[in-house]
């Protein structure tokens, strides 16, 4: 076929797919197609191109379906896709409702039934935001979904496999297109496949035939790391694009700037662990019933040795996961203070204690206790500060001030199994800057239970690190507080479940959050009552 013939055929093909082929052209096209196998293959290849693009970028155009009202025997003439299939209903019956990430409430049956983009192939204690256990063969369609904990493997179109580690928030935008709002995902394409896109707030990562991981930390720090093949990463703001090879990594700051990053082999979990937990498994979550924790005045010098001899354990609150895990996964927590320090103590039921492998950026997932506390009495209770995600477009000056107040601190208490030492990371305000290791001055220790089924932690943290050394909390103060415990697998890498307590027992209707997201919203926090 010469160039003129090819150009002519392509013009006709273009007009054909646009519905603009005139009668004379159609006749000429049909003549060529009837007589030439070469022309047919050329024409077909163009149709494959058109079809491939239509499939690739299908997805967002789909409107919400209602398969209950469809009369399937009557062909529709709608421009828009209506996913009205009984098989979709069947899939979705298996899936039940994937809860909305921020709401923690089920969607209306059928309201989320869209094209099915992936099915769950494997799950290791995977749990959705509502506490429901992830089940093999569940389908995942369009719309946001939140994996609260565990590790799940999703099989998508054309054989792509995604390994998603909770907590994660993501959304399928198309058969080859996922938006990752937070958490980590590893994408593995089948041999010869490419083109899968992982979109984040700051980046667009396109697979060029490969295996790669993308992470979005709670602070907005984004990374891509390539294990095999190549990917292209583009900064959304500037359009700057870089191609990455196997063994390289890239970081995108919250400001959208791309910069090389260290390749850390174990930053992402690439394979579903084959080890079977020997301890009770299943969904780990609690129903919060505790609103306040007493912060007792320390009357004697506190020795940070994990023995808790200076503590009155009668003042501790106790919270446990739902049965049958209540006896195994629980926390007893207490707080004390004096003029210079905040003291935190906890006994945590944990069959895999003190295993945290300190994966960069995901230390909390390997097993941790997070105590969140306001030390600014002007903020009162309940707190009003809130993460930018939930703030109105034009927040009041007070709401903005409360939300950015640096005297609201998250204390991430965890045991680094690599060094064998207690660790403390800090985050301030509701803005969620990256957590940083606390500067010197604090003390902490962990003691494993004699039976190996839990641990005790004890910390002394100077008020200076909570930005209130000149005006620390005093007796009578009621401050916002929230406690969260994370449990991990035996390797101290995968978050298996969490408990959230010391919460406002009459939470505001808005924003409607699941407990796993309470940390983003001050009005949901409980109280720390200074005695």
């Amino acid at each position: 076929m010469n160039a003129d013939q090819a150009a002519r055929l392509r013009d006709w093909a273009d007009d054909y797919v646009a519905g603009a082929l005139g009668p004379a052209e159609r006749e000429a096209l049909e003549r060529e197609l009837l007589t030439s196998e070469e022309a047919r293959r050329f024409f077909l290849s163009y149709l494959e191109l058109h079809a491939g693009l239509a499939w690739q970028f299908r997805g967002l155009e789909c409107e919400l379906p209602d398969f209950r009202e469809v009369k399937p025997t009557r062909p529709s003439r709608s421009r828009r896709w209506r996913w009205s299939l009984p098989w979709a209903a069947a899939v979705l019956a298996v899936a039940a409702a994937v809860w909305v990430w921020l709401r923690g409430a089920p969607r209306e049956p059928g309201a989320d039934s869209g094209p099915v983009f992936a099915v769950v192939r494997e799950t290791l204690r995977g749990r959705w935001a509502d506490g429901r256990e992830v089940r093999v063969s569940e389908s995942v369609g369009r719309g946001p979904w939140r994996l609260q904990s565990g590790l799940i493997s999703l099989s998508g179109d054309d054989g792509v496999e995604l390994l998603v580690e909770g907590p994660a928030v993501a959304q399928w935008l198309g058969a080859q297109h996922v938006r990752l709002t937070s958490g980590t995902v590893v994408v593995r394409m089948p041999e010869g496949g490419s083109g899968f896109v992982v979109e984040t707030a700051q980046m667009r990562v396109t697979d060029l035939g490969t295996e790669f991981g993308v992470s979005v930390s709670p602070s907005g720090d984004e990374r891509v790391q390539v294990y095999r093949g190549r990917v292209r990463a583009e900064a959304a703001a500037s359009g700057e694009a870089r191609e990455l090879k196997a063994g390289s990594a890239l970081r995108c700051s919250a400001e959208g700037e791309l910069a090389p990053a260290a390749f850390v082999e174990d930053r992402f979990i690439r394979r579903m662990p084959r080890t079977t937990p020997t301890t009770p498994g299943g969904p780990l979550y609690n129903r919060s019933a505790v609103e306040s924790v007493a912060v007792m005045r320390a009357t004697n010098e506190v020795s940070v040795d994990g023995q808790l001899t200076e503590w009155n354990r009668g003042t501790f609150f106790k919270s446990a996961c739902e049965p049958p895990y209540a006896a195994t996964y629980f926390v007893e927590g207490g707080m004390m203070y004096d003029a210079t320090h905040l003291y935190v103590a906890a006994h945590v039921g944990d069959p895999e204690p003190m295993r945290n492998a300190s994966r960069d950026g995901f230390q909390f997932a390997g097993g941790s206790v997070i105590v969140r506390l306001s030390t600014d009495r002007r903020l009162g209770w309940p707190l009003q500060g809130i993460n930018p995600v939930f703030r109105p477009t034009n927040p009041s000056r007070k709401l903005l001030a409360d939300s950015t107040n640096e005297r609201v601190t998250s204390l991430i208490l965890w045991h680094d199994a690599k060094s064998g030492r207690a660790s403390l990371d800090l985050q301030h305000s509701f803005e969620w800057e990256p957590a940083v290791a606390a500067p010197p001055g604090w003390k902490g220790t962990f003691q494993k239970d004699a039976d190996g089924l839990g641990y005790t932690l004890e910390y002394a943290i100077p008020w200076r690190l909570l930005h209130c050394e000149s005006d620390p909390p005093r007796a009578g103060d009621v401050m916002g507080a929230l406690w969260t415990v994370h449990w991990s697998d035996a390797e101290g890498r995968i978050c298996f479940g969490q408990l959230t307590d010391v919460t406002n027992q009459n939470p505001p209707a808005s924003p409607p959050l699941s407990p796993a997201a309470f940390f983003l919203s001050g009005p949901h926090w409980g109280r720390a009552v200074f005695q």
Partner: protein
Amino acid sequence: MATEPSDNRFITLLLANQSSVYRFLFTLVPRHEDVEDLFQQTCLTLWQERAKFDLEKGAFASWACAIAHNHVRNFRRRESTRQALLSEEVAELLVTSREAGGRFSEECHQALQHCLNQLPTHQKTLVEKSYREGPLKSTAAAAGRSANALYKSLRRIRAILHDCMLRVLAEGSTS
């Protein structure tokens, strides 16, 4: 509505092959809206007829495309006055050529992925918007360009992609 384990396997197969069915329909029916309707009807039939498919025997894509083909034939009968369609004789020949090509469709699909990745970002964005957002008029309005100018750009980019695809197919590699 509970699903049987075999239903789950069927759904997995359908999921893995829905792209092939969708693309097959596009080779016989050019209009996007028609393809969407036919795809919907095909999936419905596949589900209703799932008991007839031998999960052990396999060849799901062929079975699914055969059902899709039947829907296209019915569609042609209903829409016989539509000028946009090619004659039945030509359509059947195209199906035969496609089947004779073995993995031709899959190779085209892989080549397209490779070529899309070579496109500059602005061109890729235009293609994506045009296909995702439907009518060119709205995409053009958003881009501050006339629909005609946008259509020309889209044609040009498709020609670039097509040339790339043919080159990759000829080389037999997407590396």
